[in-house]
């Protein structure tokens, strides 16, 4: 039991961080960023390159991932999404753009980083073992703690910083924010950069544990969608809750349903469908996002 909870908590922390970036972008611009998973993969590869190829400390790699992805995010917003949102008659058109960017990043990652699985050596060795009841490698504890710290940091940033407050105003009501003198373009760009950066940081964090490969992008996006559906799209607390809930469901499901083989995810999906049929806006979302 302890093991299941610990696994769920650890998974939940990283999932929450992934979902945060996605939901931030969604709440600010109503863009469902299909390329979120690819941004995560990109972050992982940047950290890998800095740490494993250049031999620099892990923290440098993490910072590099953050910076690179923030720049990519800002560029995407400034030159792509902004234009399309202005010119398009239906806002769903941004989905096509996001999918195009996902394909593009996939192609770039393949050309630049290659097709192989990559990983950096463990940053801390050893395994925490409490009487075989709870087994958790130290590096996983560290990464989990870092992820939780980041989530807390992000909440504080959104709550108390000027930028964070401006973005929250923007997310709440674009029109009103504009009237209140919030520079919508500027904060949309910052928000997008921040969302992409979060994806990159998770990639960088997890490359020490799970490694990274080209194929992780798409499935990661799908999982992130799941989380924000559970929690409610465009709501920060919802993304965090969604992340932890999915982590727990996965951990519990894999343990309880192991004997039945291939059905854990089927069960999770079925639960989700039933849940959404009852509560279409997710746990904490406003009706219709």
């Amino acid at each position, binding site marked *: 039991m302890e093991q299941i909870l610990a696994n769920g908590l650890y998974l939940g922390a990283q999932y929450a961080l992934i979902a945060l970036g996605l939901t931030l972008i969604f709440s600010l611009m109503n863009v469902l960023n299909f390329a979120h998973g690819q941004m995560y993969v990109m972050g992982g590869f940047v950290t890998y390159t800095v740490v494993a190829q250049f031999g620099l400390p892990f923290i440098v790699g993490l910072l590099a991932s953050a910076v690179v992805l923030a720049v990519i995010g800002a560029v995407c917003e400034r030159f792509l999404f902004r234009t399309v949102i202005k010119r398009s008659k239906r806002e769903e058109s941004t989905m096509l753009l996001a999918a195009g960017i996902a394909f593009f990043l996939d192609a770039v990652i393949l050309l630049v980083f290659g097709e192989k699985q990559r990983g950096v050596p463990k940053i801390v060795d050893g395994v925490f*073992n409490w009487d075989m009841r709870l087994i958790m490698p130290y590096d996983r504890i560290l990464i989990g703690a870092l992820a939780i710290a980041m989530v807390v940091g992000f909440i504080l940033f959104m709550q108390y910083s000027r930028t964070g407050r401006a973005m929250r105003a923007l997310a709440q009501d674009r029109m009103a924010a504009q009237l209140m003198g919030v520079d919508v373009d500027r904060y949309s760009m910052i928000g997008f950069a921040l969302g992409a950066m979060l994806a990159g940081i998770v990639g960088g964090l997890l490359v020490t544990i799970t490694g990274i490969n*080209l194929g992780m992008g798409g499935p990661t996006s799908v999982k992130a969608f799941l989380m924000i559906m559970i929690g409610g799209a465009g709501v920060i607390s919802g993304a965090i809750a969604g992340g932890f809930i999915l982590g727990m469901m996965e951990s519990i499901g894999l343990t309880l349903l192991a004997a039945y083989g291939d059905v854990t995810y089927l069960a999770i999906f079925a639960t989700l469908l039933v849940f959404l049929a009852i509560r279409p806006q997710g746990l904490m979302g406003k009706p219709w996002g």
Partner: protein
Amino acid sequence: MQRRTFIATAGLSLAFSLTASVAAWAENATLKIGFVGVTSGPAAAWGISNQRSMETRAAWLNELGGVQIGDTTYNIEIVAFDDQKDPKRAIAGMEKMAQDGIHYVVGPNVDDGAAAVRPVAEQNGIMYFPYAFPKELYTAPASNAILGMVANYQSGPAIYKHLMETKGVKKVAFVAANESDPLSQRDSGVEAAKALGLEVVSDSVTYQVDTTDFTPVLLPVIQSAPDLLVLSGVSPANAPQLIRSARELGYTGLISTETAQDAQVLQEGAGELANGFISVGGASTPELASDAMKEFVERYTAMFGEYNDESNTKVYALEYIIETLKANPAAIDNVEEFKKTMDTFEAANPFMVGDAKLTYVGTSSFGQKRQVSVPLVVNEFQNGAFQTLFVAKVD
């Protein structure tokens, strides 16, 4: 031709391959060999190692002046098609090969693609070399597919038997990804283990390929206390993580797989924890590799920047095609001739030391010779490199 001038990570390779191609481009005729497989997206690694090993070998042969088949000397051109791991695209790829007048194609890399291209290959007279294990592809009435490697239901029993005899393995557990290929391999693995009299203690646990934490997946498996943990059809990307999680959970038994792995990926992903991991490899272990294999690895590395251990196996398909054509030049545009030759075909294996032969096998598994004979090399991972555990043959 343009395919030869790949811009790999090293700028050097560009110059190298350019000079190589210019030098060799005499008035030789061209023999096109196709490749239909996945070279983009999540599973890119499988197809890319195929395509690159073919391109490396082709460039090398052309540099040597081409290949003489009958009275004509040919330069080899590789025509590659990326099917994006989509069976519908794979059909399009095979159609494209037929359109180009190609009769010999390497690929596809997965079960669904290999099954989907079968009608096209049969209608258009194409022999193809899939890296997929379903038996109906190779047993009559099917006759155009040739298995390009050792199937897991062939290597599995050999490995289990070896481990029973040398390590006293009695209980075995299986884990597989929740996808067609790995699940099929798990099922045939379980069957083989039971046939050998092993006790299968866990065979129902599966995982999503995008799993980022395998601890919850492996927990119930480890609790079933097996002596041997088989990672059925595990992709090189997942293997290190699975090994690591199993070891971190305190598992001390053996771990094995029947698919080929990459040493560097294992080293990066699992480090010391991967020591003792048993997998099926190609023919480039120091004991087996001929000078030609060593040169192949060098050339591959020069062309593409980094070698992939899976290419040890994947270089063979092209070699088989060319050597069989040499043995019967009439087969160059007639696969029926090719099929006739297959039964008696024998040629020297350039990639292995000693007097190893290239022959077609598969009689005991498929009832007809529809498999290339590559040495079944079972490796053990030790400190960043593979060491040969034992070598066997498939008939």
